């Protein structure tokens, strides 16, 4: 017990971190899997949510709800705006899409720094959960426990939407066969708008709720983008479960891994990616390749 004990807190942090990444990465999976768009501004949409949370939060639940509404609204609008900007780029021109969304990320990040300053902003969580909770003799941040519960509920809800609803069925079909959506007679522009807005909403939700975990700052967007990319690479596009598993693994590597072996964490991410991709190189990755 003594040998496990010091790692209980990092491990729990890893779960919180992983669930946070799961929500962000789901948005990336959505835009990538359904619309075939690699949105390099996805981390910026998270940062918008996080900045809104930092600005509006004052320690009350009302402020948090307000921040959630405003942050999700702003990030959704951001996603929709991106979709409008991408309208002129032909579907399948990945290079131009990447350059455009990178430009948006760069300019957007710079605007955020102009508006909020170059410092990492503190975020106040509601007072009732802003205190340590006793967990097997350890003090643990109350908000993180609440976050774990809320994010787990979000994951369940996403799972239900993808597997039980008509929209979810369309999403699964489109990931399996990108041409299928066109066959259904749904206009590609509307699909892109819906997908990018929804993916923005997910990033915004993660940004507002996750701001106390990955806080708003100049490097937030890049960190979140990278980690959620790794999650997508590890989890593939196949299922909500795969993404969740990958997100939890990355979360643990980033927290427990760093606690156990500080220098090895990035190499661990590499190794995990290499192992997973090598294992699926012949089977699953074919389903990924658009052609």
């Amino acid at each position, binding site marked *: 017990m003594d040998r496990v004990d010091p790692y209980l807190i990092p491990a729990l942090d890893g779960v919180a971190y992983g669930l946070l990444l799961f929500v962000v990465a789901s948005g990336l999976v959505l835009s*990538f899997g359904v619309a*075939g768009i*690699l949105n390099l501004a996805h981390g910026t949409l998270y940062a918008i949510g996080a900045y809104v949370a930092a600005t509006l939060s004052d320690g009350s639940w009302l402020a948090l709800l307000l921040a959630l509404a405003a942050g999700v609204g702003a990030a959704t609008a951001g996603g929709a705006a991106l979709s409008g900007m991408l309208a002129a780029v032909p579907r399948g021109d990945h*290079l131009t899409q990447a350059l455009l969304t990178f430009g948006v990320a*760069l300019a957007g990040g710079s605007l955020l720094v102009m508006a909020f300053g170059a410092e990492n902003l503190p975020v106040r969580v509601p007072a009732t959960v802003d205190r340590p909770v006793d967990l097997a003799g350890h003090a643990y941040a109350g908000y993180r426990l609440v976050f774990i519960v809320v994010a787990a509920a979000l994951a369940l809800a996403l799972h239900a939407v993808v597997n039980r609803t008509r929209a979810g069925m369309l999403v699964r079909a489109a990931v399996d066969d990108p041409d299928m959506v066109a066959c259904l007679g749904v206009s590609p522009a509307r699909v892109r708008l819906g997908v990018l807005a929804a993916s923005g909403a997910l990033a915004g939700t993660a940004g507002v709720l996750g701001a106390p975990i990955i806080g708003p700052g100049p490097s937030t967007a890049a960190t979140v983008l*990278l980690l959620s990319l790794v999650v997508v690479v590890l989890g593939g596009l196949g299922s909500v479960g795969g993404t969740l598993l990958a997100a939890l693994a990355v979360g643990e590597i980033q927290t427990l891994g760093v606690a156990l072996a500080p220098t090895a964490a990035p190499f661990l991410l590499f190794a995990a990616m*290499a192992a997973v991709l090598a294992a699926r*190189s012949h089977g699953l990755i074919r389903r990924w390749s*658009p052609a």
Partner: protein
Amino acid sequence: MKWLIAPALLAAVAAPWLADPYTTATLARILVLGLVAASVALLTGVAGLPTLGQTAPFAAGAYAAAHSSSVGVVQLLTAACVGAAFAALTTPLVVYARGVVVLMITLAIGELAVTAASRWRSVTGGTDGLAGMASPRPLWGLPVLDTDRARYLYALAVVGIVLCVVVLLLRGPAGMYLRGCRDDEARMRASGHPVNAYLAIAYIAAGAIAGLAGSLLVTTQQYLSPADFGFDIAALLLLGVVIGGAGSVVGAIAGTAVVLAARDWLSGLLPGRGPLLLGALFIVAAYALPRLRFRLRSAVT
């Protein structure tokens, strides 16, 4: 386009006598990044594997060179080998994927390499970087490259030689096989060509070129930090390659020079607003390029 090459070469050789040392050093860095861009063009334009991750073998080569010999040739070879080895290790991540998936995976590889570089302090000096690398001598018995002009000319010579080799190879069967894979890989397979093996070779060769450029970075800049290999550099390279007409390795260098010049000009224009203007440049380029690229593609082939 061909008539441009001779005067451009002449200007490149004459430049260090016409410009001040600071500009010369800047030009040398443009050459170095241009060589990395050539490796990006090899993958993105010729082989059809769009990449944002060539900064990773570039970094691997640079750190290897920083810890290697003070003889230029040895340093270059070490860096090229390490770059190639890095690519070989990451080959299974890349060559089975296509299109935008490659973009995503290579981006993750590049970013992880930077993260690794900032953590592995004993080798990289962490985010503080490595400084004080001695200037190499190109070959045993030759003088040490102790001026900006000498270092620039050294970089120019190496970049020129590497480019000539790459262009000659791409004009031959190797280039045709790679373009065949890009055009229609099912047809390549139907003709008995092992497509993934070709792509793996191209990826490893591109890693060697980027690694070699890493050695030149150490020589010309005499300072290394993880910021030299960041995501923004990878995106700048990709933009340079697209501007240069994705299929052309020589165009990649020209495109990169244009992009870097634009970046420096923009950040001088409105101090502190550089990233904003650069972002705007990317957006404008994304809208303007498809037309431009169409014209260039017909000019190149």
